[in-house]
């Protein structure tokens, strides 16, 4: 093949791939159209802008932690009067919440009606007796991963330390034995392999936030990048 025809073929292939990818991205099925028009109780559309639907969570990688329930500990600390550490049995002994919620990944997939069980962060905060000086919550996970959430949003009733998904204990790729769940922010905030909930007076941008992602991560405002 001559160089000129090779370069021509390469460019044609690139254009076809790009157009095919764009057509795939722009294709919208019936379920997605419904989700775009359906509204949540707070008036926002069920499917945030530029998201597409998936049936189940994707693992999305991460530096996996120890999935052992017996070795798991959750440290609740920082700007609190009564810091404490929970083991897995202790987590299960706290009031349990079962909820179905929608989760939205910054890579544009959304899962509607994901069923999680766990303990409300608000209940952990109440037990720790958070000081008035606390304004942020830092979710601390294995290998130094962190994500930061404003206190007001971390104490929302749908924010959990979750240990079950889809009716079974949390799988390894999803952060077993327990992860954070903050459904109304992009899913990177929901730290997997959770090891600590730290209440902080000042904001401490987390792993992705210090790598160019948005500090807040509201899917309806498309706060993807900082």
């Amino acid at each position, binding site marked *: 093949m001559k160089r000129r025809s090779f370069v021509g073929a390469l460019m044609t292939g690139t254009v076809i791939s790009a157009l095919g990818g764009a057509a795939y991205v722009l294709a919208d099925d019936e379920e997605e159209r419904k989700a775009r028009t359906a509204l949540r109780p707070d008036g926002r559309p069920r499917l945030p802008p530029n998201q597409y639907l998936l049936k189940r969570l994707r693992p*999305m990688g991460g530096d996996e932690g120890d*999935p052992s329930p017996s070795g798991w500990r959750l440290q609740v600390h920082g700007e609190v009067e009564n810091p404490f550490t929970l083991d897995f049995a202790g987590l299960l002994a706290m009031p349990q919440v079962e909820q179905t919620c929608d989760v939205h990944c910054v890579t544009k997939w959304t899962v509607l009606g994901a069923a999680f069980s766990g303990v409300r962060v608000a209940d952990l905060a109440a037990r720790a007796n958070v000081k008035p000086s606390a304004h942020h919550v830092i979710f601390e996970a294995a290998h130094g991963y962190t994500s930061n959430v404003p206190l007001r949003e971390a104490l929302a009733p749908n924010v959990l330390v979750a240990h079950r998904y889809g009716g079974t204990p949390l*799988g390894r*790729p999803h952060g077993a034995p327990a992860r954070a769940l903050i459904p109304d922010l992009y899913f990177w905030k929901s730290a997997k392999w959770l090891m600590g909930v730290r209440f902080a007076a000042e904001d401490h941008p987390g792993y992705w936030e210090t790598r160019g992602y948005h500090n807040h991560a509201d899917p309806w405002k498309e706060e993807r*990048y900082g």
Partner: protein
Amino acid sequence: MPIRGKKNAMAEAGETPARIAAPRSRKRIHWRAVLRAVHRDAGYSAVGLTFVYALSGLAVNHVADWDPNFRNSSEVHELNTRLPDDDAAAGKLVTERLAIDERPKEVYREGDQLEVLFEHRTLHVATLTGHVVDEQQKPRFFLRAANWLHLNRGKKAWKYFADSYAVGLLFLAGSGLFMLSGKKGLFGRGLFFVSAGIALPVAYLFWARG
């Protein structure tokens, strides 16, 4: 002055006649040739890490479509039996019935659920019915290691290797600009391709309002 074909005192002392006789050459060092040589050798030494970073980059770039570190699978088994109350006995029964040779790292009971953990496998067992969800993770041989390096999971010294590699790439890109002269060099077709390479991301930034 040495005499051709005659042994002399200096040669006896270790100097070769040829060396002594050679006229002092005043070869000019051509900077472009040196640049090409250095570029070539830097390029050779960058091959390994380029494969690591490029393949890992492709893998991680599509993290939404697949798990770049593990092959994950999930199977359901029905043991159709109630499990013993003793954790060790229950774990043994499950592993025997599923013909698993590996020894569990941990058997953990939470209510009527038993978790049997292995190195890269977890069995979620309903103790009352014997319903088992068998989750397995098989590490991807090359990619897991490449991703580990690419994402600098190891921290510490790797940061300096990665920095050196990045500086090396900057050198390769910079020296590559000046390797050729003439109409195939930077001020010929090179200018077109370099401009195109810069224009593409700039155009994307404008288009995506980045």
